Each structure stands twice: as structure tokens, then as C-alpha cells.
């Protein structure tokens, strides 16, 4: 692993080793604590997570064991001021994403205007022709969005990725806070941190505000659709359903009844109004997409298009997670909002463009190269930490299908200290704030999920590859 920590922006300490204002209160508190407290609390936290069952399953893991995502007890802290600016940027970006998706599935003005090449849509599996000409209830495409941010300096937050498909991790945001409050109650009386615990209530309200035309009554029935207990994020599905007071359904619980989607209850079939699905597009409807799917509901797309049910997020939103599309986000934001983007993208080379490809091939050892449809840190090359052999193998793939890749510089991600056996030590982090969209507006939960690379110098924060999480604080004014 390259050790980029030395030159990175540390969020707690400045270059002279002085504590930055964000960590002022925390740092004073920490100094007063007996030695060994963090270690002891860390062990407590792990036992707590195991007992509550906050685990994730790793696909293909030999023993099918449920694993814990390591939790680090040092919070990641953002000041009220930094958050204000960030949330303006996030709001603008999410607004643009929804307008963009609406346009893609209607007149495609952005393509007509020449700002987005049509080839990015043609033949892209994430673009669903079944959505063309259809407007989801309330005009909302992305009910829940996770925007992955990285930081490189005091005011330099950049968007690394948009997750408009089915962003996960919000349960960790909530449980991390619960854990911190249980471990260090007095800390929260000393440092005022903005609340995150009402996220499930806000999610429920936001989903209920998107009831389909066929809904009549006072309170829409909301259900969370999960692939089942073997899915890696099952804990989160159950957690959210539980917290929202919604039903946790599987495909086999649902069917089409009188033009509605109904669930099999102990009293018979009852209509569901809003489905928060944690099942990918391609498994949603075996009649329309993957015919072998047993996770979805036959005929749900017809019901959806006829106004019988709301699907959140709307099918086809995954197109905006595409990394080639991502590279156009600055243009997209400007096109739909008429404003300059507040949040910048990470500089991105599109390997589909000959000049960019040449640059990327010449500098592979310094770049991060990603598949345009990839996610979760799979199928990518991190130049600086790869061997000559790995780089050569990747180069062959890149030359064969340049369209399939984008490249970005190896960013010097900011660091936040984690607790190690040798004391506090800086590690690279990112941040995924969670955003709710409804006809009533855009609602951003203060903070989000901080993922942290636990290995010294590592830039890979994905939980599937040895990353951990931290509680993320936004300070109250």
C-alpha cells in the first residue's frame, strides 16, 4: 500500500499537530478519559453488534458466516458551517439527478442539445426502455440517494460516486450513533451533535408522500421488499422495516390482484401502495426483465405503469450511477438547475475518448481505473498499489474495451484518526450522506456513513474489502 497519509489532509490535526476546531470538544473530552477506555469500549461494541445481529454476509464466502463491519469508536466530525455548504451542494446535485432521469425517460433534451452523447444510453443495461414516457408517482425517481463524498482539503469535498439505485448503509449510520451514545453518554452532553435517529420516520413519511394514483384512504401501506435473509444487506432491510413499522416482504409474498400489488397476509391478500425495494431492477419482474428471477413479482411493471403501485427507487434510476454518466455530472447539474455545480466531481478521464485513453495508458501506474458499470470496489485497478503484472493484465482489458472504463487520479483522501493498539492513527475516509426525495422536497440527514480504510495508507474503504465505519457527527451551531 502506498503511504499517502503523510501528505493527506487530516481532519482532526493540522500540519503543526494542533487540533482543528471541529475536534475541539471531542479532543478535550478524550484527554480526560482514563487510558484503555477506547480499547475496552471497542470490545464492548463488538459484543453489542454481534448480539444485535448487525452483520453482513459476504457473497461467496466459504463458511457463509455473517461478518461484522468493524466499528471504530473515534467519531468523524464535521462543523455546522462545512455541513451547510455540503448540504447545499448535495441538494443541488440530487435535484439535478431527478430532473435528469425524468428527461432521459422523456424528451432527452440533454441528448438533443448535444451535451450528453447518445451512445451512453444506447445498449446500456441500466437504461430501461420500459420506463420511457412514464412518470413515477409524485415525479420522484430517486426516493433515497447516497452521495459518496471524498475530501482532500479544508473546503475541498468532491463527489466520488452517485448511488441512486439502492444505496445501502443507512442502518450502520443509525446503529453507529446508538452505539456511541451507549458507550460514551457523557460525551454527548459535552459536544452538541445533530440527531440522526429520526431517519426512519422521515423515510416513512417521504415514501408515504409518493402514494400511487390507485391509493385511496388515509395512510398508504408501505412495504420493504428484500431478497431475503441470505442477502448481504438483510439486516438493514429488516432494521428499516422495523423502524418504519412497515412490512418486510419477499417476492413470494406478493402478487398482482385486481390491478394492484397485494401481499399475502393472515387475513388474505391486501394491497400495498409503496414498495421500498431492495431488489435490483433486473430481478424486479420476471415477466419484464430476468425471467429466472424468484426475487421479484410477476407483472409488477404493468401495475406500476398503470398507477397501481409506487416503486422506490424507480426502476431505471441506476443509469445515473453509471460512471461514464457520472463524468458528465457537472454539465448535467448546470443543464437542469441553471447553476454552477456547488460540489465538484473527481477529475475523470473517459477512456472512450482517444486522447483520454492515451493519457490513461501512459499513466496507468498513477491512476485509479474503474468499470463504468462496476460498484463496491470490484473490477477496478488502483495503479499505485498494483504490481507490474496486474497493471499489464488490466491494460489488456482496457485496450480491448476502452468504453467500459473511466480513470481518476489517486486522490489523497483526507484522514481521520482511528483507534489502534498503538493509540490514535490517521486513516483515509469517505462519507456517504443519505438523501430523501419526495414531492415535499429534499431532506438530507446530517452526517451520513463514514467508511474508513483500516489498513495504514489504504484508500479502499469498502466493507467487502476490509473497510470499517465510524459515527459521523455534524456539530450543532
Amino acid at each position: 500500500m502506498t503511504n499517502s497519509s503523510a501528505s493527506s489532509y487530516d481532519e482532526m490535526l493540522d500540519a503543526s499537530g494542533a487540533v482543528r476546531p471541529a475536534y475541539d470538544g471531542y479532543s478535550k473530552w478524550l484527554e480526560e478519559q482514563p487510558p484503555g477506555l477506547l480499547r475496552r469500549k471497542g470490545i464492548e461494541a463488538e459484543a453489542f453488534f454481534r448480539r444485535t445481529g448487525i452483520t453482513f454476509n459476504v457473497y461467496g464466502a466459504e463458511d457463509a458466516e455473517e461478518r461484522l463491519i468493524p466499528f471504530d469508536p473515534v467519531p468523524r466530525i464535521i462543523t455546522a458551517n462545512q455541513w451547510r455548504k455540503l448540504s447545499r451542494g448535495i441538494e443541488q446535485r440530487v435535484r439535478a439527478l431527478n430532473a435528469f432521469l425524468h428527461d432521459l425517460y422523456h424528451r432527452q433534451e440533454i441528448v438533443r442539445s448535444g451535451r450528453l452523447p447518445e451512445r451512453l444510453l444506447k445498449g446500456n443495461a441500466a437504461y430501461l426502455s420500459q420506463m420511457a414516457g412514464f412518470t413515477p408517482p409524485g415525479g420522484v425517481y430517486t426516493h433515497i440517494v447516497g452521495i459518496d463524498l471524498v475530501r482532500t482539503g479544508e473546503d475541498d469535498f468532491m463527489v466520488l460516486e452517485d448511488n441512486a439505485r439502492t444505496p445501502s448503509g443507512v442502518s450502520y449510520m443509525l446503529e453507529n450513533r446508538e452505539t456511541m451514545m451507549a458507550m460514551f453518554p457523557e460525551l454527548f452532553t459535552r459536544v452538541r451533535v445533530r440527531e440522526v435517529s429520526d431517519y426512519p420516520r422521515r423515510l416513512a413519511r417521504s415514501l408515504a408522500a409518493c402514494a400511487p394514483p390507485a391509493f385511496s384512504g388515509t395512510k398508504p401501506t408501505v412495504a420493504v421488499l428484500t431478497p431475503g435473509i441470505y442477502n448481504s444487506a438483510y439486516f438493514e432491510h429488516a432494521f428499516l422495516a422495523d423502524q418504519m413499522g412497515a412490512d418486510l416482504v419477499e417476492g413470494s409474498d406478493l402478487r398482482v390482484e385486481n390491478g394492484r400489488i397485494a401481499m399475502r397476509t393472515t387475513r388474505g391478500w391486501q394491497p400495498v401502495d409503496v414498495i421500498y425495494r431492495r431488489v435490483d431492477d433486473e430481478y424486479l419482474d420476471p415477466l419484464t426483465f430476468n425471467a429466472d428471477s424468484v426475487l421479484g413479482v410477476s407483472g409488477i411493471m404493468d401495475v406500476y405503469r398503470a398507477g397501481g403501485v409506487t416503486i422506490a427507487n424507480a426502476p431505471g434510476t441506476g443509469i445515473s450511477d453509471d460512471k461514464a454518466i457520472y463524468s458528465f455530472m457537472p454539465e448535467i447539474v448546470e443543464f437542469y438547475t441553471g447553476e454552477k455545480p456547488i460540489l465538484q466531481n473527481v477529475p475523470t478521464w473517459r477512456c472512450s475518448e482517444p486522447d483520454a485513453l492515451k493519457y490513461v495508458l501512459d499513466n496507468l501506474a498513477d491512476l485509479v481505473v474503474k468499470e463504468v458499470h462496476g460498484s463496491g470496489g470490484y473490477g477496478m485497478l488502483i495503479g499505485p498499489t498494483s504490481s507490474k503484472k496486474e497493471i499489464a493484465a488490466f491494460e489488456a482489458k482496457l485496450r480491448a474495451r476502452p468504453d467500459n472504463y473511466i480513470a481518476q487520479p489517486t486522490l489523497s483522501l483526507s484522514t481521520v484518526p482511528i483507534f489502534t493498539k498503538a493509540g490514535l492513527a490517521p486513516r483515509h475516509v469517505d462519507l456517504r450522506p443519505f438523501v430523501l426525495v419526495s414531492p415535499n422536497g429534499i431532506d438530507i440527514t446530517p452526517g451520513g456513513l463514514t467508511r474508513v480504510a483500516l489498513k495504514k495508507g489504504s484508500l479502499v474503504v469498502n466493507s467487502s474489502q476490509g473497510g470499517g465505519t465510524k459515527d459521523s457527527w455534524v456539530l450543532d451551531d
Partner: protein
Amino acid sequence: MLGRSANGIFWLFRYLERAENTARLIEAGFRMALTRDLRDASDEWRSVVVTLGLQAGYEAKFGPDYNGPQVFNFILRDKNNPGSVLSMAEQARTNARAVRTGITREVWETVNDNWMGLREMLARPVNETRLGDVLDTIRRQATQVRGAMEGTMLRNEIYNFARLGTFLERADNTARILDVKYYVLLPSLSYVGSSLDNVQWENVLRSVAGERAYRWLNAGRMEARGIAEFLICDGRFPRSLSFCYGKLRSNLEQLAREYGSEVGAHSILRDADMRLHSQTIDTIFEQGLHQFIGDFLATNTRLAQQIQRDYRFIE
């Protein structure tokens, strides 16, 4: 609630009940075996395996060799034995995970905690020295789940489905023990309890955790007919058939009230309950104890199936 969730809750509590009862049977078997010579002990273990309905699986693996540690390890921790306590704890936990939204955090954490503890405890073979501790733990775990459930669950449909699972399973268990041991209780065998009879009777009571209650009610006097009456007709004893059916009746009634209507299961239960309560131990012995238990087990199974159908547990 979802039919699938009702099914999950129902089975969660069936598995928990069955795991607990299994531990009690082992305990009774172990005690009995200790007081026997080798051949009788092995008969005793065989009867435990038969009562649990695990004979085929056991003999497929070990043949007809019923030595104690082999038997109780098979029953406690054999991964290939779906009826082992460990397999059932895992089934219970899987069901609890699947119905996580239907149970309280306390119930879930207790079930999860128990499973983790049990897995660790049963990671290596259990010997006779450790057996007592293991069985103790299993019993204590069952008590904890019950406590968490009593103290935190809403008394709604979910609770009622859970209780239906518990009492159908418990009635089944008590009836199975009677089914395997009925000959011990036949009055014709001996009117005056020999010391051997006394031990056997006590063993039957012990396997349903009823020895103290029975002795207390009968001033320590052991007698076959009294024991049969106690296990079948005594509505005060929480593992008697009569008690279980009383509970089933009230849980099904509460469901009918909550849902505003009765289903097929209600009439099956009414008939079964009436049959049970209209009998005395004399009429049962006249009809034949074995026959009575056989009928009871069949009805119990039919009732369980009807509940699953009526409340759409499965498609």
C-alpha cells in the same frame, strides 16, 4: 401481518419449545441410565431417541448401538441431525431473523445470544461431566426467551401465533412421551408400585419437568393412574395436555376476536377440546391409553395444519 411472518413466528416458537423439551428428555434419560446396568441404560437411551422421532436418523449413522455419550451428542449437537438441539436453535434463530420485524429487540437478542452461546458450548463433544451444565444452560435459555417474550411483546396476533406454536409443540411432546411410555403407566402392570415402577414413573414425570409438582400435589405418593391423570387431565400443570389445549383455545379465541371471525381451526379445536375435557382418566383407560394418545397426536397434527392453511402461512 404477512402469512410468511406468521409462519416464521409459529415455527420459531415450535423450535424453541422442542429444543427445551429435548433437553429435558435427555436429562431424564441420563438420570435413568445412571441407575441402570449397561443393557437397561442402553434401552433407556433408545427410548429417548424413539420419543424424539430420531430413530431412523440415529440408526442410519450408528446402527442399533445406543451408548449414552453417543446418543446425547447426536441429540445435542449433530449437525446432520435436523432434530438436534443445535440444529433447532439455528432454525429458531433463522426464523427469528426472518421475522425480525415481528418480534421485539429483546426477544431477538435473546434468541440470537442463545444461539451464539449454544454454538460455542456445543463446538466440542459433550462428556458426562459437562452434560449437566449444558442441559442447565439450554433450560435457562428457554426461560430467558419466555421472559423476554412475556415482558416485551404486544398481545396481538403475533403473540397469539407464537403461543399457538408453543402449545401445539408442547402438547405434541407430552403426548409423545406418553405414547412411548404408556405401558409403564398401565394399571394392569402393577397396582403396588415396586421400586422399579417408582423409578420409571418418576422418570416419565421428570421428562416433562413434572416430578416436583406431582409429588407436591400427591404428598409424594407415586401411582400410575395418578400420573397419567396428571399429565393428561390436570389443567394446573403447564405441560399437561389439558393445559396446552386450554391455552390453544384462548389464543385461537383471541385471534377470532381480533380478526372478527372464526376459521376452520376453531371448530377442530372445539371438538378436540371437548373430547379431552369430557373424558376422565377412567374413561381414557377404558378406551385404552394407547389408543387415546394415538388419536390425540393425530388431532394435534391436523389442528396445526389447519391453522397454517387458515391463516395463509404458505401459498
